[in-house]
């Protein structure tokens, strides 16, 4: 009676999987270099993300519905801005296409980070229920494994919506495009996504210390992107200072956008700071990496 009898349409023939290309040596060498670890991490990320995608696809209707819901919700998000502009002609001195430029950049960059690492806030729950330990006995970097956790394609919704708004703003904004300005836009997107990724990782690292801090993390990530959808001129100076120097979200769009749109720099920053976004992103990622390592080390010495 231990075996529930299964229907016969599935045979045992599936036992042997189709041959996989490129057999790899399985005896791992000694300590591995950073480059190799990064490659291992990416590989593990894709493997696990692929499993989650297939898991989601077992419930197709549910996937379609959440995807549609996601689009509607992010769309409503943008509707707020349109509603505001139906009453006023400019917001903090910025026109609608300009605000859309900010919005599109922030939403797209955040959307990419959210797609890639958006489920890292489950870390606390995984620690609490003990399933985090099962990741530590696998031969793959834990960051990659937890980063790919609950990978959800429905998050493409935000990217889609963000890039539509960005695209519209690019054609309607009143800017004399130069090659430098054109080049800066993709740089901003990449750097912005990296800054948000760093924020996700740092937030997750914090959960090693405080396991119920998922909402704190969300306040910074989701809160941050909402913030950046409005021009810096609508906020208080001290606040802008904090978002520039403490939590350098300003480099996602405010600072470089000032260059592209030919507006005064927030906090009267010098002109070259527009191009510093990639550098800021690299520093953020490095700091987040260190925070993650410290958090993981703390976990492994306390186990709670």
């Amino acid at each position: 009676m231990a075996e529930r009898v299964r229907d016969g349409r599935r045979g045992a023939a599936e036992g042997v999987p189709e041959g996989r290309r490129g057999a790899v040596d399985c005896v791992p060498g000694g300590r591995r270099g950073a480059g190799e670890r990064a490659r291992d991490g990416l590989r593990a990320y894709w493997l696990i993300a692929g499993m989650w995608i297939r898991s989601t696809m077992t419930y197709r209707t549910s996937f379609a519905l959440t995807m549609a819901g996601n689009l509607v919700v992010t769309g409503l998000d943008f509707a707020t801005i349109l509603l505001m502009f139906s009453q006023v002609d400019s917001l903090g001195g910025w026109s609608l296409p300009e605000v859309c430029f900010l919005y599109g950049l922030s939403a797209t960059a955040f959307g990419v980070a959210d797609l890639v690492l958006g489920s890292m806030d489950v870390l606390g729950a995984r620690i609490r229920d003990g399933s985090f330990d099962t990741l530590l006995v696998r031969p793959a970097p834990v960051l990659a494994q937890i980063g790919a956790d609950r990978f959800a394609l429905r998050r493409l919704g935000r990217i889609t919506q963000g890039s539509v708004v960005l695209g519209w703003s690019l054609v309607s904004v009143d800017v004399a495009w130069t090659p430098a300005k054109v080049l800066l836009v993709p740089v901003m997107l990449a750097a912005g996504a990296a800054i948000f990724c760093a924020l996700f990782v740092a937030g997750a690292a914090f959960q090693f210390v405080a396991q119920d801090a998922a909402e704190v993390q969300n306040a910074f990530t989701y809160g941050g992107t909402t913030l950046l959808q409005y021009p810096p001129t609508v906020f208080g100076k001290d606040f802008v200072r904090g978002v520039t120097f403490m939590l350098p979200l300003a480099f996602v769009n405010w600072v470089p956008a000032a260059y592209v749109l030919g507006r005064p720099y927030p906090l009267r920053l010098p002109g070259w700071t527009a191009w510093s976004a990639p550098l800021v992103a690299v520093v953020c990622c490095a700091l987040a990496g260190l925070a993650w390592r410290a958090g993981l080390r703390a976990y492994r010495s306390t186990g709670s």
Partner: protein
Amino acid sequence: MSDVFIEVDEVEKVFEVRKKTGFLKRERHQVRAVDSLSFTVARGEMVGYIGPNGAGKSTTIKMLTGILTPSGGRLRVAGIDPSRERTRLAHRIGVVFGQRTTLWWDLPLIDSYRLMHRMYRIPDARYAENLDRLVELLSLEALLDVPVRQLSLGQRMRGDIVAALLHDPDVLYLDEPTIGLDVISKAKVRTFLRELNTERGTTVLLTTHDLQDIEQLCSRVMVIDHGRLMYDGPLTGLHEAGESERTLVVDLERELPPIDAGPAARVVKVEGPRQWLAFPAAESAAPLVARIAAEYPLLDLSVREPDIETVIAAMLYPIGDTAKPPAERPTA
């Protein structure tokens, strides 16, 4: 011991616990989860690792698998320092956490195995061979295409064991592998583990609350309490050390005064025609049964094994037995 595979030398693990004692006030104190623990396990051994809840069992396993870093002492598994080379060690060990499945809930069982194949970079031929063999031994052939969420607990446990062994680990850690399983599933798992150990020489370390797991599988038992090793030796020695008792339940034809079975056993309870006799767990029940059958109108009888908690408790906290120190280690 010539072929030492797991080496634990004076290992300790201290946790700092903060307790709220008032508003914003916290008291810190240290908890020694594992306290100067030393043992070795040879290649191919099958060891039961038991102890009361909170004794330090899972902390030890977590240190051996590289999840936790020890606070002190030296630890080696297959010559590797687990906490420093976690990913390298991962290729050499298999871990089954009894109550936490690592299988993919919504996907067919085979998908979880394909993930292992790629994540552990198992060569194709070896993967195919291992999968065939394991799936056959644990009779999971018909279930490979069934989503894991539809499997019964016993099937899932077997599925987890396969997942943990596809990469040919040298050592298998099992945490409560038979918990919640029905009798048939338990038997299947035990038979499989025995074969794995004898035929493939896989070293097995298992924690359990089921004394039968130990009885049927492990030639050696380690008992841990308060983070210290209290006993290390064969199971029979554990019974002797603890002077634990088995119970013979006897159904007579009619109500009778307590059975006189001589010094070998004593009646602990009488309820109508049914009587309960306690006798040392290390002794055979046969002479006792023969004697009762010869002298009394016997209808039926059964032997009850002490559960593992009772055995351990008897060993750790002997009642009125001061002559024998509880921490005696007959063969260590």
